[in-house]
């Protein structure tokens, strides 16, 4: 017993030293999951000789960790999977503005912070998925139309606690105004065929099984599910094409103010925005490259071209809290 304890103590002391980043190393706090970034980061190390160390977690938690660690933080880069959390990080003044011609060239304006504190790296579209056996494509139009009376008992949604839905509703507050958004959300809730699900995949499985006829999901979940079960009676529909276009969000990154390697970090972000990296970054998760000169994955191209919303994503962050309150009030769980 005593020997075991002694052995454990020695091991512990051995391991407990703070992970000191070497000079040739960048540290990324990433809300993007390990299996979507690992290969790309290793490629950068191979090509550029700079090791990328990362730790994954939920974006608000990583942000809070940087806030608490303050200038002692190890983080050089914060990588998230939505613009809302990046906006919030910028709001808390932990991201540093970056002037980079490369990033300006590769990334369209509405996918980055107006003050250049964060940059989108891949685009994710949130649109309508429907049961092809039960719904004709012509019956679909806008997100708002799903709140109409003819959709009663036919709609399936993911929980309002997911940031993707919060951004979606925030963007409607921007484009439709608060009143219209409110009645749309209230219509959605009335039309639900089942209580909101905890994941997009579950929503689609329920639509395929016939519990409801249509729902709103991120397209890469659709891509993944169809790859596993190509026979599911599910179709993708680009919403709102005659007006604002499909709601999009980004997975993106900003450089932490306290970083001692800002230049290196900028070079890394620039590399990520270039063709080769963009292809890998987007394809790993069947997303759309933010760099418009890069084509998405073949399977993704099959869904056809679409018009995407061009409202600056910073607004999604700014209006997120209002969106959450609106959904609370309308009973969207």
């Amino acid at each position, binding site marked *: 017993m005593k020997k075991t*304890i002694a052995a454990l103590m020695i091991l512990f002391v051995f391991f407990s030293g703070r992970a000191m980043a070497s000079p040739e190393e960048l540290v990324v706090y990433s809300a993007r*999951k390990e299996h979507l970034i690992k290969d790309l980061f290793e490629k950068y190390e191979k090509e550029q000789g700079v090791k990328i*160390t990362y730790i994954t*977690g939920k974006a608000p938690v990583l942000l*809070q960790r940087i806030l608490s*660690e303050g200038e002692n933080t190890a983080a050089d880069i914060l990588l998230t999977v939505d613009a809302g959390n990046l906006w919030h990080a910028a709001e808390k003044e932990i991201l540093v503005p970056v002037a980079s011609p490369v990033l300006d060239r590769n990334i369209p304006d509405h996918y980055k912070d107006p003050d250049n504190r964060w940059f989108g790296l891949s685009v994710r579209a949130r649109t309508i998925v429907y049961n092809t056996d039960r719904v004709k494509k012509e019956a679909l139009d806008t997100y708002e139309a799903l709140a109409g009376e003819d959709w009663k008992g036919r709609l399936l949604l993911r929980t309002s606690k997911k940031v993707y839905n919060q951004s979606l509703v925030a963007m409607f507050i921007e484009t439709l105004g608060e009143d219209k958004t409110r009645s749309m959300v209230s219509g959605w809730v009335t039309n639900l065929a089942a*209580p909101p699900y905890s994941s997009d995949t579950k929503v689609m499985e329920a639509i395929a099984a016939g519990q409801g006829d249509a729902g709103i999901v991120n397209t890469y979940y659709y891509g993944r599910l169809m790859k596993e079960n190509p026979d599911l009676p599910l179709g993708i529909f680009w919403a709102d094409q005659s007006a604002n276009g499909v709601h999009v969000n980004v997975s993106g990154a900003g450089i932490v103010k306290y970083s001692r390697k800002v230049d290196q970090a900028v070079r890394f972000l620039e590399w990520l925005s270039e063709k080769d990296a963009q292809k890998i970054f987007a394809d790993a998760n069947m997303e759309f490259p933010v760099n418009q000169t890069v084509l998405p994955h073949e399977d993704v191209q099959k869904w056809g071209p679409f018009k995407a919303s061009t409202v600056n994503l910073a607004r999604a962050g700014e209006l997120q809290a209002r969106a*959450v309150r609106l959904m609370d009030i309308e009973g969207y769980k």
Partner: protein
Amino acid sequence: MISSIRSQGGFIVSAGIAVITLAPVVFILASGMNADPEIWSHLQQHVLPALLKNTAVLVAGVVSITAALGVSLAWLTSFYEFRGRRLFEKWLIFPLAIPTYVMAFIYTGLLDYSGPVQTFVRTYAPDLAGAFPEIRSGGGAIMVISLAIFPYVFLMASSGFRSMGRSMVEASQSLGCGRLMTLFRVTLPMARPWIFGGLILVFMETLADFGAVSVFNYDTFTTGIYKAWYGLFSVNAAAQLASILVVIVLVIFAAESWMRRKQKFFNRGGHQPVQRKRLNGPGHFLASTFCGTVFLVSFVIPAVQLLFWTVKAFAVEFGTHYIRLVASTFFLGLMGTAVTLAVAVILSYSGRRMTDLKTGMAAKLSLSGYALPGTVLAVGMVHGVAWLDNRISGTMDLLGVQLPGTLLQGSLLLLPLCYMIRFLTVGYNPVFSHMTRLAPSIDEAARLMKVTGAALVSKIHLPLIRRGMVTGGILVLVEIFKEMPVTLMLRPFGWDTLAVKIYELTSEGEWERAALPAVTLVLAGMIPVAFLTFIGRNKTQDVPEG
């Protein structure tokens, strides 16, 4: 002075532990003081009423069901003999190895509209299809969480029943009480510290649960905390909500101590184990069926589903990194358990030395970490450590010493400490329950033999509570294996555990790929759980005669 330190020793130690464990809570409270009033009034008006009702329903449901399951199973396997008893006695602890959130995604997957069960019924018996209750509801959450954590009550109640010895039961029966009357008048009351200990674990675990309820999309107090933080960007409002949880737990603790005040639970009789009564006929059949059904639903079905998924996704998911994941899981688990157990023993020991109110209060305060959602606790920890680090580097600067980076932040030390704060009550309960069986006469006897001080502790007390320590240690180990939010937030680079891997995959909706780390985690958890079933079987009772 020295004599006062001596006489107050128990209190000083307990208070010290309470200060350490409450520090993160205090840091959270401090930051929660200036919550945005607008957010607060929104929460009060539109969110809290429903959350409080949901939470009350969930907690009441889970506590009643786990009490019914745990106590009845423990009573059957402790006092009766029937087919399979020896196996059930061990196997019914196995569900503890399955994390609650894993149990939740397995059962929603099986029983949802698009799941295999309902699909089968729709295909072959369409008339019955409408009869299914919604699994993603309060009832579903209660059922599934209960299945995952009833073994706490089962384990504690069994331990209470068995360490009671035969004499009490025989006395009761010789005075003319029937078996049932003995159960309600003697057995259950005598086992109350154990049963309550188990139920309090269940209560706190349910209050703090986030993973499972979010799979059901069932909004509880915990989901409210995360909504305030993630959705409304207000860590302060989240902290205020979390502090309410701490208060609720303290009230429950106070009520429990008040109810058992001045009662003693040791006895002076002989300690031969209870003679089990052999069941015959329908009773026999019912007992076996009941135990078998609970085991089937709480372990066999989830395990089979996990294996099924694992086989499907094995090729995509498996790799050499699993060696590292398993190693980290074990290493962090053992470190955390060592720290937690040490503190649990010290705390219950000082509680035995000093039985006054303030020492008791300090001990109870130390245990409240289990009711806090892990992430909230971790934030408090990071706050506290950052503060401490700044003080240290400030002092060092004054002394002219330049520290390379920070001392504590990002250090591996934080995790075992945070595990201790979170799981102290899990380790403390079995240890303390065994401590209550130590009659003061043991000390008197020892003193007559001139065994005092350190020798009294190491030669007499520790061996006598060893079973409690082993039980507590194993429970803590399994808890740490399953722990996700604290590990996710505080782990240093490269210290991913199996639970972290499960989180990564499930949060992307990749249930099938998540099955491999889940199975590995269950297997890892089975090792200590299986070990738990061996102690107490080959050994006669450790509890001494009075």
